[in-house]
C-alpha cells in the first residue's frame, strides 16, 4: 500500500510486513491486551505487541523467501494446485514402494507406545480413536455424500454399549467391540431407513436431531444410564489378565503378577493403544480396499449423481443404508475404545454436538473420500490442540483460522483424491 513501484524489493517486503504487523496489532489488542478484572480491567500491552511482532516476522520471512528462486517455485506450485480439481487418476506403478513406507509406519506405530509417558499415551489413543471416527464419517460424508451432523450418536452408542453392558450383563472389553459395532450399525439402519430418502439439508437436520436425542436420552434416563453421573465399564483384559494393581474379577490375575514384573499404570494404556492401533490399521485396509470394490464404487457414484445411479438399476436407499451402517459401525467401535481409555467411565458430556463438528472437520480437512487425508487430519486435529495447551484460550481461534485458510486454498482437502487405474487385466 505504501510501497512505490521502484522501491528495492527488500524495502517493499519490509513495508508490507509492517502493514500486516499493524493490522495484527489492531486485531490482537482488544482480544489479548485487555483482561477483565472485576468491574474494571487490566491492560497488558506487551502480549498483543509480542503477537503482532511474531506476525510481522512471519510475513517478513515469507516475503524474503518469495524473493529467492526456491521460494518462488514453492509458491508457484502452491498456487497451481489451487486451480486443480483435486482429483487425479493414478498412473500404473506409482505406488510400487508404498508398502515399504506403510511397513515402516506400521512398525513405528507398534513401537511408539513403549516410549511414551502416560499422558502422551492417552493423547495417542484419543488420536487413534479420532482416526476411527474420521474413517467412519468419511464413508458417510466423503464417499456416499450424505451430510451427517449427528455422527457422535453412534460414538456414544458404542461407549454406552460397553459401559452399560458390563454394568448389567458383565460384558467384557473384547466382546463389547463386535457387540457395540453391531448395535451401532443396527441403530444406524433403523435411523437410516426412513430418512435416507431425504437429501442434503433435510438429512443433515434429521441426523443432527438424532445426535441430540441420543445424548438427551443418556442424560435423562437416570434409572438405566445413570444420567449425568455416567456409567462404569469393565477394565479391559487380555486372556484373563488384568492391567490393574490387583485383580478386580474372580479368576483373573493382574498382568504384572503373571509375568513377574513390577506394576506400571502405563501397561493398560499400552495395551489399549496397541488394540486400537491394530483396529485402526485394519479399518484403513478395509476402507481403502472398499473404495475399489463394487460397494465403494456405488457409494461414490451415488455422491456424484443419484439420478444416474437409479437409472443404472442401483437401489439408492440400500446403498445409502449400507454406507450409513458401515459408518455407524466404525463409530461404535471408536466408542468402545473411548470408554476403555477413559478408565471405564463415560458420561453424556463427552458426546455433544461439538464432537460431531470436530469429526466433520477432520473429514473435510482431510479431503472428502481420501483415507490418508482423513488419517492425517485426525492425527493433526487431536494432537495439535494437546500441543497447544499453553495457548488454551486461543485453541478454538487457531482452529477456526486454520479452517478458513484451508477452505480458501484447499477446498478439497490436504490431499487430492486418487482414482484407480485399470488395465484389461485388472487394477494396476
Amino acid at each position, binding site marked *: 500500500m505504501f510501497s512505490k513501484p521502484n522501491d528495492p524489493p527488500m524495502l517493499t517486503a519490509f513495508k508490507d510486513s509492517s502493514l500486516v504487523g499493524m493490522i495484527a496489532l489492531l486485531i490482537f489488542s482488544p482480544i489479548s491486551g485487555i483482561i477483565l478484572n472485576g468491574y474494571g480491567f487490566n491492560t497488558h500491552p506487551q502480549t498483543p505487541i509480542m503477537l503482532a511482532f511474531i506476525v510481522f516476522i512471519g510475513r517478513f520471512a515469507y516475503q524474503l523467501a518469495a524473493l529467492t528462486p526456491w521460494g518462488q517455485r514453492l509458491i508457484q506450485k502452491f498456487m497451481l494446485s489451487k486451480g486443480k480439481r483435486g482429483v487425479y*487418476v493414478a498412473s500404473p506403478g506409482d505406488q510400487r514402494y508404498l508398502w515399504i513406507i506403510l511397513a515402516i509406519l506400521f512398525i513405528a506405530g507398534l513401537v511408539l507406545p513403549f516410549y511414551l509417558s502416560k499422558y502422551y499415551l492417552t493423547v495417542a489413543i484419543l488420536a487413534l480413536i479420532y482416526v476411527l471416527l474420521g474413517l467412519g464419517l468419511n464413508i458417510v460424508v466423503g464417499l456416499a455424500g450424505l451430510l451427517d451432523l449427528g455422527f457422535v450418536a453412534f460414538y456414544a452408542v458404542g461407549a454406552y454399549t460397553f459401559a452399560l453392558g458390563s454394568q448389567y450383563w458383565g460384558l467384557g472389553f473384547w466382546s463389547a467391540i463386535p457387540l457395540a459395532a453391531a448395535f451401532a450399525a443396527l441403530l444406524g439402519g433403523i435411523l437410516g431407513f426412513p430418512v435416507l430418502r431425504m437429501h442434503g439439508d433435510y438429512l443433515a437436520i434429521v441426523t443432527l436431531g438424532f445426535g441430540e436425542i441420543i445424548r438427551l436420552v443418556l442424560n435423562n434416563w437416570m434409572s438405566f444410564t445413570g444420567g449425568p453421573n455416567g456409567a462404569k465399564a469393565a477394565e479391559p483384559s487380555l486372556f484373563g489378565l488384568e492391567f490393574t494393581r490387583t485383580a478386580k474379577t474372580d479368576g483373573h490375575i493382574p498382568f504384572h503378577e503373571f509375568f513377574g514384573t513390577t506394576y506400571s499404570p502405563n501397561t493398560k494404556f499400552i495395551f489399549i493403544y496397541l488394540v486400537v492401533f491394530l483396529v485402526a490399521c485394519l479399518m484403513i485396509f478395509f476402507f481403502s480396499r*472398499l473404495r475399489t470394490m463394487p460397494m465403494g464404487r456405488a457409494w461414490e*457414484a451415488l455422491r456424484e449423481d443419484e439420478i444416474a445411479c*437409479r*437409472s443404472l438399476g442401483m437401489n*439408492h436407499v440400500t446403498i445409502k443404508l449400507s454406507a450409513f451402517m458401515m459408518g455407524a459401525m466404525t463409530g461404535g467401535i471408536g466408542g468402545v475404545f473411548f470408554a476403555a481409555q477413559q478408565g471405564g467411565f463415560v458420561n453424556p458430556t463427552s458426546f455433544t454436538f461439538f464432537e460431531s463438528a470436530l469429526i466433520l472437520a477432520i473429514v473435510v480437512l482431510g479431503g472428502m473420500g481420501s483415507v490418508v487425508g482423513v488419517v492425517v487430519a485426525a492425527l493433526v486435529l487431536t494432537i495439535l490442540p494437546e500441543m497447544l495447551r499453553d495457548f488454551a484460550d486461543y485453541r478454538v481461534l487457531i482452529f477456526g483460522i486454520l479452517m478458513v485458510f484451508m477452505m480458501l486454498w484447499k477446498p478439497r482437502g490436504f490431499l487430492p483424491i486418487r482414482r484407480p487405474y485399470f488395465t484389461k487385466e485388472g487394477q494396476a
Partner: protein
Amino acid sequence: MSDVASPTPPSPLLSVQGLTMRFGGILALNNVNFEVQKNSITALIGPNGAGKTTVFNCVTGFYKATEGQVILNDNGKTTNLRKVLGEKFQWSDYVNPPAFLERLYYKTFGGSHRVNQAGVARTFQNIRLFREMTVMENLLVAQHNHLDRNLIRGMLNTKHYRASEKRALETAYYWLEVVNLTEDANRLAGDLPYGNQRRLEIARAMCTEPKLVCLDEPAAGLNPRETVELSTLIRHLRDKHNVTVLLIEHDMGLVMGISEHIVVLDYGQVIAAGTPAEIEVNPKVLAAYLGTEEGDAS
C-alpha cells in the same frame, strides 16, 4: 434394411396405454398410447414442450404417472413398470392381503431402479456421468447388479470375486471399443469432450444389459460428423446387440434416417404415428411443427 427386423411380431416389447401425467393443474400428458416393437428403432418427436421427456420419465420410472399403464413384455415375461415404482394403496387392498403385501413390498423396496432391472436403460438430455470418476469406473458402476458384491469375498480377494471383476472389466472394455473410447479408459469422465461424453453415457446404459434403451436427445450438441457416427452406433446396437431403441430427437435427418416407427407428440397427446415416410407428409405433423392458419389442420 429397416423393415426386415420387425415383421409385426405378436406382442410389442413396450406398450404404453392411456398414459396421463398431471403436475398440479397442468396436464402434461393426456391419454398417450403407443407401442414399441421388439428390435425396432422407434423415435418420439414433437415440438418443444410437447411432453417427450415426460413420456420418457414415466417409462423409465422417474415420474409416477397419474394414470395409465406401461407394460414391458420381454419373451413372455411381463413387467408392469408402474407397479414396481410403488403405488398408493387402493381400498380393495385392505380386503386382499396378497395385493396389499405386494404393494407394500414395492412401496418399500421399489423405485426407478426396478425399471432398469426389468430391462429398460436410459440416457439423459443433460449428460449425467459420474464426472469425478474415471471412464472405466463409470462402466463398472453400471454393472453393479451383475457383480460379486459379497463383502467378505471382496476383502479376501477370492477367486470368485476376481473372476467377477475381470468379467466386468472385459465387458467394460468391450463397450469402450464399440463406442470408440478405449484410449480414454483411464481419464476422468468429466474431462472428456462433449461428444465422447454422450457416447460414454450410451455405453454405460448398455452395460446394464437392457432390452430397451431409451436415448434422450443423443445428438444434442454433436457436430454433423459425430451425428453420423451416432446413427451408425445406434444401428449397431440394434443389429448386433439385440436391443430395442426408443429415442427422442430434434435432428430430423437422424430421426428419418434410422427410425422405423415414429410417434409424434404435441401438447401431451399423440397426434400421429407411423413410418418416416408417412410422418413426413402427415398434415397434422406439419401443422404442429410449422404452424397453420386456423382450421387448416383439421
